[in-house]
């Protein structure tokens, strides 16, 4: 029973397209995140939501728009995709206290 699940796992799309990645957690956590991992494996936080409210928004282009319909779901929509958006996007969740973070399996996005 997957704790944090993301879809799709692989996504190949053309520049200029709009795409979404969905994330769901069944751990009952209050806080969810999106992280971006680049080709050098560096993990950078993009957004954090706590109980559906945006609490962290790092310097991410406004082409990226997160949405949290409820505290178990956090989706990421990306407009006008660029080559530099190619990366692995990880969804994660944690308890309110910020203890152990649980990651999804990642979504491999390739923009061509």
């Amino acid at each position, binding site marked *: 029973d997957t704790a944090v699940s993301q879809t799709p796992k692989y996504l190949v799309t053309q520049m200029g397209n709009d795409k979404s990645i969905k994330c769901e957690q069944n751990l009952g956590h209050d*806080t969810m*995140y999106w992280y971006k991992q680049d080709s050098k*494996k*560096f*993990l950078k936080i993009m957004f*954090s939501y706590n109980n559906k409210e945006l609490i962290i928004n790092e310097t991410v282009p406004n082409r990226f728009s997160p949405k949290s319909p409820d505290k178990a779901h956090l989706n990421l929509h990306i407009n006008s995709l660029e080559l530099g958006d190619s990366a*692995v996007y*990880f969804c994660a969740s944690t308890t309110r206290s*910020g203890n152990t973070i649980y*990651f999804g399996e990642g979504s491999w996005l390739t923009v061509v």
Partner: protein
Amino acid sequence: GIQVEQSPPDLILQEGANSTLRCNFSDSVNNLQWFHQNPWGQLINLFYIPSGTKQNGRLSATTVATERYSLLYISSSQTTDSGVYFCAVGSSGGGFKTIFGAGTRLFVKA
């Protein structure tokens, strides 16, 4: 914001060898975790260890919060230990912002 530095950046071990990975951080933290990313990209939490020492099988970790560092020990390494090891920290002033180090890339040779 907090800076997280991990060393060494790369490590090659012969199967059966022991190793120590280090994580230095620039400010006081209330949250420190170690993760292993396997060759398939999966991120697994190894330890939640803001202070003290913990052990889990061949792995153990120690965090000395007052001196702002943490160590991850791998004993009797196996080929399945290969991957990238990340240290991640969060501070009380940073809300729920957890910052990752650049990682240590470990390859264990058979």
